[in-house]
C-alpha cells in the first residue's frame, strides 16, 4: 500500500491537450473515484498512473518514488479493465497466476495466493474454465481476482462495471465496497457513473475537459459543489439553476428574476448574503429534493424556507419518489414529491424551497459563491 501524488500533470496528443495541470494527493488507504463525462481525461489519467501512457509534463509519485519513466510492471500496481481483458486462451487459473509467473513467484506461493483469492471472490468452481465459458459477472470476478492476487501499492479500476447489466452492476458495486472495507487498499477508480462515485468513494475527483473540478468527500461534492459543472454532473436528476439577485435591505432575500409576477422573494441565510454582497446577480442552485410540496408544519423546523408557485408540466413517477417538472419563468425545474402527494399535470403548486441547502453560483465564472 502506498499514497499517490500527482503534481501539475499534463498530457498532450499532438496539439490536443487532454489533461491540463492535474494536482491530486491520494492518501494511503483511500478509495478515490475519478468521475466525469466521456472525454474528460479520466481514463487517460488512469493510464498514466499505470504507466500505459507517457507523461507530457508534471510528476506522478507512488509512495515516495517518482514513477514518470518507470515501466508498468515495475510500478507495483494492479489494474482491472473495463473489457476485463482476460486472456482468452488461458483458463481462469492461468489468468490469475500469469502475473506471478511473469514475476517468477515460486509455485507454492502462487498456489496459496490463488486459493486465497478464489475463496475471497468465490470462484473456486471456475478455475478450470476459459473466459468464454463465463458469464459477465463471473468474468468481472476473475478480472478482480487477477488484480487482488498480488498485494500492490495501488489498485486501479477502469470503469469495471460498465459492461454489466443494471442489476448485476449494483451487486458488484456493493461487493467492491465490501472488498475495499476488508482490504483497505489504496484504490483509484474511474467511472462516468456519478452514483458509483458517490457510493464507493472516500473522496471524489470530478473531472471535466482535462481539468480537475473538485476533489472532496462525496457529501461535500454533493452539498457544496465547487462549480456549476460539478453541481449539474453529480446528482440525478441534476441540480436546478435559476437566475436571481441578492437584496440585503432588511432581512437578506434572493429575488428570482424570471418568476411569475414581480419576483419571488426567497429568504437567504445571513452569512451567505454577506459573503456574496448586496445587489449581486447570482444563479440559485437547488436540488430537486430541496424543492418539494409545501407543508405548513415545516415553518418552525426549517428557518430558511421559501415558497414558489409554479405550474406542473410533466409528472414522472419512479416508484420511490415522483419527479414533477414545473415551469418557473422560462425554465423547467425539477421538484421531488412523495408518490402519495404527487401533483397533477396542469395544477399550480406551491413549492417549498429549503434555502439552507441552496448553492449560489457566480453567473460569469460559474463558481460557487
Amino acid at each position, binding site marked *: 500500500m502506498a499514497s499517490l501524488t500527482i503534481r501539475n500533470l499534463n498530457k498532450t496528443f499532438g496539439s490536443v491537450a487532454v489533461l491540463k495541470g492535474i494536482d491530486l494527493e491520494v492518501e494511503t488507504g483511500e478509495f478515490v473515484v475519478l468521475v466525469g463525462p466521456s472525454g474528460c481525461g479520466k481514463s487517460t489519467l488512469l493510464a498514466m498512473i499505470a504507466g500505459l501512457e507517457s507523461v507530457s509534463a508534471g510528476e506522478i509519485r507512488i509512495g515516495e518514488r517518482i514513477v514518470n519513466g518507470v515501466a508498468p510492471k515495475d510500478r507495483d500496481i494492479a489494474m482491472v479493465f473495463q473489457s476485463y481483458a482476460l486472456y*482468452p486462451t488461458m483458463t481462469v487459473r492461468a489468468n490469475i497466476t500469469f502475473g506471478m509467473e511473469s514475476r517468477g513467484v515460486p509455485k507454492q506461493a502462487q498456489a496459496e495466493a490463488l486459493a486465497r483469492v478464489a475463496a475471497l471472490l468465490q470462484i473456486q468452481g471456475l478455475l478450470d474454465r476459459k473466459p468464454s465459458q463465463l458469464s459477465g459477472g463471473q468474468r468481472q470476478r476473475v478480472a478482480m481476482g487477477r488484480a487482488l492476487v498480488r498485494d500492490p501499492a495501488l489498485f486501479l479500476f477502469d470503469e469495471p462495471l460498465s459492461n454489466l447489466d443494471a442489476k448485476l452492476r449494483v451487486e458488484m458495486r456493493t461487493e467492491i465496497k465490501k472488498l475495499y472495507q476488508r482490504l483497505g487498499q489504496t484504490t483509484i477508480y474511474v467511472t462516468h457513473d456519478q452514483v458509483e462515485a458517490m457510493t464507493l468513494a472516500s473522496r471524489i475527483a470530478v473531472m471535466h475537459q482535462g481539468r480537475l473540478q473538485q476533489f472532496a468527500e462525496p457529501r461535500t461534492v454533493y452539498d457544496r459543489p465547487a462549480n456549476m459543472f460539478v453541481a449539474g454532473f453529480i446528482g440525478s436528476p441534476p441540480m436546478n439553476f435559476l437566475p436571481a439577485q441578492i437584496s440585503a435591505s432588511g432581512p437578506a432575500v434572493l429575488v428570482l428574476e424570471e418568476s411569475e409576477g414581480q419576483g419571488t422573494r426567497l429568504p437567504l441565510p445571513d452569512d451567505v448574503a454577506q459573503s456574496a454582497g448586496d445587489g449581486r446577480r447570482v444563479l440559485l442552485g437547488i436540488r430537486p429534493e430541496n424543492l418539494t410540496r409545501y407543508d405548513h408544519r415545516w415553518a418552525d423546523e426549517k428557518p430558511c424556507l421559501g415558497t414558489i408557485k409554479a405550474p406542473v408540466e410533466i409528472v414522472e413517477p419512479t416508484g420511490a419518489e415522483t419527479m414533477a417538472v414545473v415551469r418557473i419563468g422560462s425554465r423547467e425545474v425539477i421538484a421531488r414529491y412523495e408518490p402519495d402527494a404527487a401533483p397533477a399535470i396542469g395544477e399550480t403548486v406551491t413549492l417549498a424551497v429549503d434555502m439552507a441547502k441552496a448553492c449560489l453560483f457566480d453567473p460569469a465564472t460559474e463558481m460557487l459563491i
Partner: protein
Amino acid sequence: MAEAAGYDPLGAAGTWRHQRAKLVVYTLLCLFALYYVLPLGVVILNSFRDLPDINRNGLIGLPHSFSLNYWSLAWDKFCVGGTCAGIEPFFFNSVSMVVPATIISTAVGAVNGYVLAKWRFTGSEVLFGLMTLGVFMPGQMVLLPWARVLGWLGLTNTTSGLVLIHCVQGLSFTTLFCRNYYVNIPDDLIKAARIDGAGFWRIFRKIVLPLSPPILIVTVIWQFTNIWNEFLFAVIFSSGTHQPITAALIALSAGGTSVHQYNVESAAVLIAALPPLLVYVFGGRYFLRGLTQGALK
C-alpha cells in the same frame, strides 16, 4: 442470420417457375464446372494411356489402354536434362525450398504483424504501407537486384538462394495478413499483460501466438502454395540439378527426343501439382475460416 442462411433467391415465385428456374441455374453451373475441370480430367486420363492410344485417338479422348507405369516412370526413371532419375530429385528440391521458406516467412510475418499492430511507433503506419506495396510489385521488377544480391552472397543456383528470395518476397503478404489479424486483438489484453509483468516476447508467446492459429494456417497455406507453384524465380535463379520441380517440368518436356511422351509428362505435371492440392484439401476449411474469422468471437 438463420433467415439469411435459409433465404432462397429463387423461392419467391410459384412452384413450377421455381423448379424451372432452379433447373436452368444448376444446369448452367454444372456446365461451367465441367468446363473448368476438363483440362485436369484430360491430364489425369492421359497419365494412364499409352502413347499409341494417345496418338491414334487424340490428346483429348477416353482411354483405350490403362497403365500405372507412366507415374513410376515420371517419378524416378524418366530422363530430364541428361540425368535419368525422373522428377523425384526436383520434387525434393522443391520440398527443401518450400518448407524453410514457408516457416521462416510466416514466423517473421507474425512478428512483424505483432509489432505493427500492437507496438506502434512513430512511422510504423508508413512502414506498414511500404511493406504492403510489395504485394503489388511484379516479380519481374526485382529479378536484376536479386541476381546481384545472390551473387554477392554466393548463393547463385542454390536452394538456399531461392529460400532467401521467397522469404523476402513473401514478407509483404505474411505481414499484411498477420498485422490485420492482430489489430483485432484488444489492446487491453496487451496492457493487462504489461501490468502483469510480461515483456515483448512473453506477450507474443503467451497471449498473441495462442490466438493465432487461424491466421497462421492461412499464411502457411498461402505461402506454401505460392512458393511451390512459383516459376519465374525458379527458372531464372536455378539450373541443372538444383531446379525446383516447376522449372524441371520445362526441361522435361524439352527433352532430347522429338517425340512427346504425353503420358509421362501428364503424370509428372500431376505429381508436381499434388502437394498444394493436398494442402488445400486438408487445410482448405481452416483457410476459409481463418479469412473470415476475427481474433476473438
